[in-house]
């Protein structure tokens, strides 16, 4: 039985602020509110990586949050998509090149949807999520290769020990 079509009917989101200015975070919160009501799409803000499908990351990745970002990414079971919300999560934005910023979520984990804006609007976030759902349907269940993870892509059906993925993060000095 092909269950892939049901993935997009029940996307549970996890939100992580990797060092942003809060602007996008409150807009994510606003998405939950009655005006935008993201639960229409079956979304729940789980707050728990182990039961989430979509990771919403905001903010340029600061040095202190980079390992936490990879850790919670590793704790999410595939298939999963990552949405970088806002300019700084996508590229580093105005913070790019600052001494404590790594600049952009895609430096660490594979990102599927980039949502623009500073700060990004709820409509844009919802649009990004809907685009992510289309990607989610096509995803495989293997772990994806990434810039800093230094992990080979893992095929479906093989056992993977995720316990030490974040240990392999090496600091990048700019």
């Amino acid at each position, binding site marked *: 039985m092909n269950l892939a079509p049901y993935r997009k009917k*029940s996307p549970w989101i996890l939100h992580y602020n990797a060092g942003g200015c809060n602007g996008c975070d409150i807009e994510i919160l606003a998405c939950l509110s*009655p005006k935008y*009501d993201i*639960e*229409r799409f079956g979304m729940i803000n*789980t*707050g728990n990586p182990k039961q989430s499908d979509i990771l919403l990351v905001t903010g340029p990745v600061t040095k202190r949050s980079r390992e936490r970002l990879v850790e919670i990414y590793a704790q999410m079971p*595939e*298939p999963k998509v990552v949405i970088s919300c806002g300019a700084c999560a996508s590229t580093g934005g105005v913070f790019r090149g600052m001494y404590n910023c790594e600049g952009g979520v895609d430096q660490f984990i594979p990102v599927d949807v980039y949502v623009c804006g500073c700060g990004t609007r709820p409509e844009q976030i919802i649009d990004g999520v809907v685009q992510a759902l289309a990607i989610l349907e096509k995803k495989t269940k293997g772990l994806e290769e990434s810039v800093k993870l230094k992990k080979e892509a893992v095929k479906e059906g093989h056992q993977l020990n995720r316990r030490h993925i974040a240990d392999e993060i090496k600091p990048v000095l700019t």
Partner: protein
Amino acid sequence: MKDVLIPVLLILLAPLLGGLLYGFERIVKARMQRRIGPPLLQPFYDFLKLADKRRMMVHSTHAFLGIMHFVSLWFALAVLLLGGDLVLVIFLHLLSTSLLILAGYSTRSVFSHLGANRAAISVLAYEPVLIIIAVSIFMLNGTFDTAAVFTGKEPLLYKMPLAFIALLLVLPIKLKKSPFDVAEAHQEITGGVELEFSGLFYEAVYTARWLDYIFCYTLVFLFAGSNILLGIGLVVFTFIYLNALDNSTARVSYKQMLRFSLGVAGTLAFINLLINSFS
């Protein structure tokens, strides 16, 4: 034939009914919060999606206990619907809860542990009340068998209104509804014992919640005896009451919950027990 067929059908369809009930409840809740809410079949979409996830767990003991929680809860529900002994049903339910609590304890995860601690406290809060209610029922019927309640002439509600109120007061604890959802407490311990489950293993715990709905509403239905109309009325009333309560209260602390449940609900059930023993 009919006596057996309906319970068996109910038992087999329990997850389905529970899922529908849960989906409907999510809509009602959303409407109460002036939102549109998810579609009615949302729980089943969740179910199918969870089955599709890559499998992941902390360790095998933990995952296995979660599955057995679902199995044993279904079994407890079956015994209840087939007219089994009420005290035995309560203890079987305790057994299934205890498997989940043990699963919570079995990992070295802080929130899972905390959730298990709180779930154990919740057991302390509602179990004595349920047992007292069961004994009150025994006094009226002379037997603990729920079959006798389902076939009884007069609805229990007329004889034990206080016990019914006590049941209503402890149901939010069992169903993890505000104000007594300390065991789940999303903002505090992110789901408690459910936290470490994922994918297919979480599915077992997630579906067990649907069974818990059926279990609790069957307990409510007991108070109507053989009067099906009254039973449906009670269930609808309880449904509305639970959702209204959920939407108008904040979560209290576990100490306040324990004090309230044992103090108020326990006293009500006890008074009802005394009344029953004197009448």
